[in-house]
């Protein structure tokens, strides 16, 4: 039922889009009909290019997100648990976070050239901060009363961490991961728009300069589908984890 309801609006949008090709409010250059987008997709699939664009983009996101999230979890845990690490590192990390992430692009290209490394690194940066910030804040706001009760029963150090602190922040970790994943897709497109020869971001720039609006729509729809799918996968794990740990 919920699934059906959630499909109502996309269905209506698709209908309005199809209707436009009949009524002609927007020209086919501005808004090609759904059939043209489908044809563009078929053509790219037949030439074997579409799969490459999707695969390389997904690969970049997965690698970048995994590394960024892992670093975010490590630093979030370190600064959330240790006042010393917080005092030592928070100003620096806060300053780095304040830099608009696209400002790193020229430097990354200078250091790593235009290749996979610079793109993946940008995605790592994008995924890092939401994960780091969410975990850090969650660890700082673990119910003090629970922590005290744990201490009163002799839990400390690693045992206090694994028995009380980590389980308490599991739901927050997942919301951080989902935010980080959304950022990863955002930064993927940014990286590919700037410099690439393959990937959905490249497909966008390339189609734009060739006036292929149908392909632009195709790329946007694919990004929406991929982003939503990966987020839904994470959402399923999140629901399981929240049930388990709260």
């Amino acid at each position, binding site marked *: 039922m919920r699934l059906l309801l959630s499909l109502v609006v996309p269905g209506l949008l698709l209908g309005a889009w199809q209707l436009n090709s009949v009524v002609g409010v927007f020209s086919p250059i501005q808004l090609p009909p759904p059939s043209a987008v489908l044809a563009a997709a078929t053509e790219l699939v037949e030439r074997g290019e579409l799969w490459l664009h999707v695969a390389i983009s997904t690969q970049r996101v997965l690698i970048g997100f995994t590394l960024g999230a892992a670093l975010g979890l490590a630093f979030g845990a370190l600064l959330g648990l240790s006042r010393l690490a917080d005092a030592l590192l928070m100003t620096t990390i806060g300053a780095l976070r304040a830099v608009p992430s696209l400002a790193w692009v020229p430097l990354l290209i200078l250091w790593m050239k235009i290749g996979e490394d610079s793109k993946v690194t940008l995605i790592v940066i994008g995924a890092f901060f939401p994960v780091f910030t969410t975990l850090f804040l969650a660890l700082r706001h673990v119910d003090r*009363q*629970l922590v*005290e*009760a*744990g*201490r*009163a*029963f*002799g*839990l*400390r150090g690693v045992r206090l961490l694994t*028995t*009380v602190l980590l*389980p308490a922040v*599991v739901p927050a970790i997942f919301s951080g991961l989902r935010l980080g994943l959304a950022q990863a897709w955002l930064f993927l497109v940014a990286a590919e728009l700037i410099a690439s020869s393959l990937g959905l971001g490249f497909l966008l720039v390339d189609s734009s300069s060739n006036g292929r609006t149908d392909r632009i729509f195709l790329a946007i729809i694919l990004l929406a589908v991929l982003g939503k799918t990966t987020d839904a996968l994470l959402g399923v794990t999140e629901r399981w984890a929240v049930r*388990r*740990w*709260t």
Partner: protein
Amino acid sequence: MTALLTPGGTHAPHHNQALGLRFSRLGRSFGSPEGKRIVLQDVSLDVRAGEILAILGTSGCGKSTLLRTAAGLDAPDSGQVLIDGDPVRGIDERCAVAFQEPRLLPWHTLRANVAIGLPRSASASTGKAKVLELLELVGLDPFAALRPREVSGGMAQRASLARALARDPGVLLLDEPFGALDALTRIRMQDLLLDIHRVRPTTVLLVTHDVDEALLLADRILVLGRGSADTQEGSSILELIAVPGVRPHDRNSADLGALRSTLLSMLGVTGR
């Protein structure tokens, strides 16, 4: 002595007897924006092994602070707490605490929560048996596999009590453990506490703001408070009263009626 020699074979060998506790010239103050605020001042008291001592006082008088120093959750600025003659330094294995809130871990079952209280020395099998025995004692054995949010406040509080008992504490510290419960549940919990104390006599320090509860449960009542209206001064012992008769005390007796008025007027309530 091994665990096998004790009846039932489920008790940790060194904790299962009531221990005496002594507060010795205890002082504690907290820093606040307006300067130092003295909470406890020169509190000295001997608590006998196996007795139930109620600690009464108005809110903010330092009842909980006194209890927390005994648990090692708080360190006094001066003086010390001695359990069985040894000073308390940090969290003390000989004590167990039950708080006003159950403070159970929401992601664990009641059974696993009770097991948190087990002393580290307990082996897996004796620990498991003891948790089962305690759940039975507090009447939670049918609910052992439920999570805290799936049970009522009274049941959660019973689990919290069982968790404290799992330590086989020489001193059981109860910080207004029934304060947040409804009147009926509170009466049941008070009876339960006396039952438990009969089965496993241990020294109990019970912080409460309920005069009737103190009269019903305690062997002695300590009234904590400031000697004058001067807020610069910290709380100390205003009165230490032995409650006559045998537990559970009949609160309708004339002796207790008079005592009740005395206690209430000490806490600033008159004419009742």
